[in-house]
């Protein structure tokens, strides 16, 4: 059936005598592999060498603080709504007097938990956040876990450390 004018028929060509005799094609293939034998391996020796992850790699989550060290998150819950895996849970609380240096907005997340095994690293939470509070770090991957008890990351693991700030030079 001819449905478009772009058809290109690929004929199965007859085998020539040389091809029927196996050996020339085998020799050709072996030459190719031999060529690779002497090439430099492309392997990245992982634990010692790290691979370039790209400027916007979606790695471990981080809850950003602003310049003054106050948390940006306002516990609006958009990230939790946007999460297709329903991995984010939070409990919001009103900011009290005297906590302005800790929390930028009037509401903050008292509890902010991400289940790292549920998370699918789609980046929708980062996109959903109107306060640019949550990011997926491009320079750090989530570590592996030995047991189920370790997998829920609370604020202790998520909030940015002011001594080791996360900067993203890439997009956004």
């Amino acid at each position: 059936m001819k449905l478009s004018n772009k058809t290109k028929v690929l004929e199965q060509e007859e085998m020539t005598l040389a091809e029927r005799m196996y050996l020339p094609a085998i020799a050709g293939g072996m030459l190719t592999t031999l060529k690779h034998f002497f090439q430099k391996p492309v392997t990245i020796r992982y634990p010692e060498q790290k691979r370039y992850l790209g400027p916007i790699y979606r790695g471990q989550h981080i809850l950003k603080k602003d310049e003054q060290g106050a948390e940006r998150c306002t516990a609006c819950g958009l990230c939790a709504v946007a999460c297709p895996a329903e991995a984010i849970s939070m409990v919001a609380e009103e900011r009290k007097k005297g906590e302005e240096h800790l929390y930028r907005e009037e509401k903050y997340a008292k509890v902010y938990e991400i289940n790292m095994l549920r998370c699918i690293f789609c980046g929708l939470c980062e996109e959903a956040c109107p306060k640019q509070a949550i990011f997926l770090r491009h320079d750090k991957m989530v570590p592996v876990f030995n047991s189920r008890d370790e997998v829920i990351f609370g604020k202790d693991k998520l909030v940015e450390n002011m001594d080791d700030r996360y900067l993203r030079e890439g997009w956004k």
Partner: protein
Amino acid sequence: MSDVALVSSPNVGIAKPEESKKYVNELTTLNLGPTHPATHGIFQNILTMDGETIIDSEQTVGYIHRAFEKIAERRPLYQITTLTDRMNYCSSPINNMGWHMTVEKLLGIEVPKRAQYMRVIMMELARIADHIICNSILAVDTGAMTGFLYVMQWRENIYEIYEELCGARLTTNMGRFGGMERDFSAEAIRKIKHFLSEFPKALREFESMVKRNRIFMDRTIGVGGISGERALNYGFTGPNLRAAGIDYDVRAMNPYSSYEDFEFDVPVGTTGDTYDRFLVRGEEMWQSLRIIQQAMDNLPEGPYHADAPHYYLPPKQEVYRNMEALIYHFKIVMGEIDAPVGEVYHSVEGGNGELGFYLVSDGGRTPYRLKFRRPCYIYYQAFPEMIKGSTLSDAIITMSSMNVIAGELDT
């Protein structure tokens, strides 16, 4: 309505194996899968064999059934991208963008030319990645491991391009309603160009290792063939249908995302056997390279997303400053966009064939019903017919040349 005669389907004439013909030989049943290495861990075939000849096979699927369609009824439209990612995971950008185009059709969004071209580039890269896997796994299943690793290096390169654009390797979650979420960075363009110039060498090398090697040809020619007529009746699409000689390609027949702008050929095979499928996939990679080259050469300037504030997330700075943008941002994230009531069907040429999205919307934040037309699911039913009478080895390479992707098969 008895005046309509119920005849003339090619399916009618196909006879079951004659019951009267007795096999004097002892038959054995062999359980192929679900953890057999060649099924790639996903489906089961119970083969009835006479020695090494397959008499019959019974398929069981659903081993990774994840209820996509049910999930889709509970998720806002934009979150469904994460599902389509995991459908044909070898070429997730195609699935993503097919879904986005479906929604754009429903919402009536006009996507700017640059975004369309970017989509084309990404989709064709994804197609190459998909076909690389299929063709090289076919080689692995015939025993040639090394060629697989040569081309897989270039799949890594494709993943690096994805990473530049969206930050993930496999499940990309790439693109948004109305365009892309980011423009190409200079690095991405450099990498695509590098890929365009270097990949042909690797592909040629891979083809030189297997394409005209008699062992490989003997293994594949005349194996697992299907006629064009039967293939159509079985609902084949994509490379598997084209291998059977029917040049149905959604890109050529119903161009979407400006495919009409590009020059490319639709390769078709002649006999529909495994070797033809291999050839068609191989040639499609070359055609994809052609399309990417054209798209890169003619990449228009302009915005990379549509100017549709109701549907496309505003930039973060805007959200912070501008009340209107903030409202839109909330509405979009909550999924409260004004989707019209209606039904829309859109299909794209996925890695395995016509990937269709049938979306029934009742105006709510989630689809009322979303039916994925998964090409794998439909053509995999022909497998018993294709392997009947061949040997176990044939069945295995037929399976891998059909490129049955579990995620797409079982959703």
